[in-house]
């Protein structure tokens, strides 16, 4: 069987040469990556630690390496930021994952916004005021050393809300934007504990999100969360860092649960820009994605070794501007719950590990399922509809081009990225939710059926 052997070797050779060829095409690809069409760019951000990739890409000169001259500007709130991107005053921005999806769908302002880069995983927490915490605490199971068992579930909050209700008062919480990660996380946590967070009914013009609500949620800009809670306007909030740790520092509240515990490794912020921008300036888009990927990798390199340096940069007044200690508390692998109860949460802020930067369709679809669950999408949609919308907004094609050129330039090795040849854009069914419900991005409608609280197929308000 000599011929068989020779065919085998031939095949092996072929495979080898095609691999070489492939890496060659990669190389030539990087050579064809032209100069940026637009060199002067302006990016917006909200003062939160998860804007770090943008700050690092600037400070470490990654943007300049790409020939991009970027100005970074803090924005007053998410609405202003989104409008800035839509009207072109900003070329791109640190966005809530739900913002490009909602904008493309036409919930709120309608505009085609895309994202080639997912900025981070986790990074949020839910904080309640000291008074609410005192009332909740007796209902929480304790460990042998007297500290509360984590994750703290909303079950322990339910009696507090009922007590308030019998006193004729409403329980109010703040979140940062109607389509924000925080809104859905807070709702998920509350609903998992049997507390109804309220429905939206946009087809009736009701966008307050408080229909049937046991907890009234409203919008407050992140930096103002602590002061709003201190003033007593809200009993708690769900927000990104450093605003939970600041409540601990200021002694005005207690973070009870992180989003890592609500949904392990949940996608959080994305880098958003208009579809028109990406189309008009393809090289610029790939180049800025390259810079951001490098920044994200730097943030996670050597087991977070660069985090203290990153915290120092973020504490500058033109970035997040909070004190070093406050930011460091969550970014360097620990998280302080009740004052003194500091626990290790190494993955509280993930920027690169676990393929954090790859824009997964399944992540976009999870946000869509939650929009449907709470009525922001008022009618039934097919599984295909979810998939189509996700692939319109999330653009792994741009990401892959950027990543491959980084690999070709030997800046990042290929094993740091997902296997692009096999990647479908759907994560395997995810199990780690606080209520143990499994999420499979390929079956959004079946997923919605699993919840006790929330709209299901056929429901319409």
């Amino acid at each position, binding site marked *: 069987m000599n011929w068989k052997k020779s065919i085998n070797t031939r095949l092996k050779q072929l495979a080898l040469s095609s691999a070489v060829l492939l890496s060659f095409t990669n190389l030539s690809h990087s050579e064809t990556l032209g100069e940026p069409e637009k060199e002067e760019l302006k990016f917006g951000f909200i003062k939160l630690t998860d804007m770090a990739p943008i700050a690092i890409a600037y400070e470490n000169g990654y943007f*300049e390496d790409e020939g991009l001259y970027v100005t970074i500007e803090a924005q007053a709130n998410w609405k202003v930021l989104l409008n800035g991107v839509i009207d072109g005053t900003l070329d791109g921005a640190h966005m809530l994952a739900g913002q490009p999806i909602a904008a493309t769908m036409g919930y709120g302002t309608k505009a085609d916004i895309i994202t080639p880069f997912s900025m981070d995983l986790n990074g949020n927490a839910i904080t309640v005021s000291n008074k609410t915490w005192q009332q909740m605490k007796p209902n929480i199971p304790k460990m042998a050393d007297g500290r509360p068992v984590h994750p703290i579930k909303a079950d322990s909050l339910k009696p507090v809300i009922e007590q308030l209700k019998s006193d004729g008062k409403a329980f109010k919480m703040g979140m940062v934007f109607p389509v924000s990660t925080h809104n859905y996380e807070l709702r998920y946590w509350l609903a998992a504990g049997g507390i109804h967070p309220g429905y939206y009914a946009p087809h009736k013009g009701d966008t307050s999100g408080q229909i049937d609500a046991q907890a009234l949620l409203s919008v407050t800009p992140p930096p103002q969360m602590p002061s709003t809670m201190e003033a007593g306007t809200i009993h708690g909030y769900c927000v990104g860092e450093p605003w939970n740790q*600041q409540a601990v520092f*200021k002694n005005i509240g207690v973070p009870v649960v992180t989003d890592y515990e609500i949904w392990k490794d949940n996608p959080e912020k994305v880098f958003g820009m208009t579809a028109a921008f990406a189309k008009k300036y393809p090289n610029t888009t790939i180049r800025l994605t390259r810079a951001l990927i490098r920044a994200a990798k730097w943030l996670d390199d050597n087991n977070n070794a660069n985090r203290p340096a990153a915290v120092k940069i973020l504490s500058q007044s033109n970035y997040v501007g909070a004190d070093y200690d*406050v930011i460091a508390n969550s970014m360097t692998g620990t998280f302080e719950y009740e004052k003194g109860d500091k626990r290790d949460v190494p993955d509280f802020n993930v920027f690169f590990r676990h393929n954090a930067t790859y824009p997964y369709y399944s992540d976009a679809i999870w946000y869509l399922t939650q929009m449907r669950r709470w009525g922001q999408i008022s009618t039934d949609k097919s599984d295909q509809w979810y998939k189509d919308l996700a692939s319109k907004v999330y653009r792994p094609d741009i990401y892959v081009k950027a990543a491959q050129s980084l690999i070709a330039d030997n800046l990042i090795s290929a094993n740091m990225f997902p296997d692009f040849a096999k990647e479908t854009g759907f994560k395997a069914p995810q199990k780690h939710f606080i209520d143990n419900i499994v999420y499979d991005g390929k079956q959004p409608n079946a997923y919605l059926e699993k919840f006790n609280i929330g709209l299901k197929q056929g429901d319409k308000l």
Partner: protein
Amino acid sequence: MSSTTVKITSLTITEQAVNIVKNSLTKMTNALLLPVIGISIFIFLWSITAQSIHTSLGDFPGPNAVVKQFSSLYLEHKTERKKATEFYQRQEKRNAAKLAKNPDYDAKIRAYTGKETFLDQIVTSLITVTCGFVAAVIIAIPLGIWMGLNKRVNLAVNPIVQVFKPVSPLAWLPLVTMVVSAIYVSDDPMVSKSFLTSMLTVTLCSLWPMVINTSMGVSAINSDLINVSKVLRLGTLTHIKKIVLPASVPMIFTGMRLSFGVAWMVLIAAEMLAQNPGLGKFVWDEFQNGSSDSLARIMAAVVVIGFIGFLLDRAMLQIQRKVSWDKSSVNA
């Protein structure tokens, strides 16, 4: 006899000298010592009360903390300038490399993309307020003179002025922002939109006191002067130049000083609300940051804002002294 007279005169001379010294001493104490005493008492009270006000961002900043922030702000400014120089050097190198690769490359030197320091913000605010104010002067003074000279125009325009005068700048701001972003569209704008928004808001608010004062000053000109003008048969322009303007300068300047004060206050508020570059944005950013230095930095900005406002007013006063023919009309 004569010797006694001499004695008396010499006595009066020494007495006069003593009096002069006494007077100038009291003047000196009045001019220097009293303000110093006032300021010291204020600083003392400030540091005492500051210690007893506890906020969630730490104690209220006392004078020490503010002085410390001034030096740290200056230090930041210097570091940023150094970064800027490095930025330009890197850019030149990169441009040269690109040009070597592609001779057609359009090499431009781009402005530094780093943050604006406190000193930069002060300069931005000063430029904005001056431009806004000058625009207001250009509109208000001619309008005021016209109204002052012509009763009918006055009757027609006065109601509008009276209605717009009390409007807060913050009410104008959203309108100005939207109009500017709708009308001022250009790919390569000469000035930024945010500058234009702040400037127009300042103009809109500093217009009215100037219009009112100018028209009142002009209409209250002594009728003798007007008669002189009539006798000499001066033309309208000469009449305005030789009679109206000199006679109404005190009133016009009172209006201008009032307006400049308003303009400065309005600017800070507008910058704060619209996040336009300048001192107002600095204050707002620091408030949002919520770091332990924030309050001291805001207090430092407050001191600077006040001091600049004071200097602007003094500058206007000097100009008024220069241009009025009747120096007695100038009151500090």
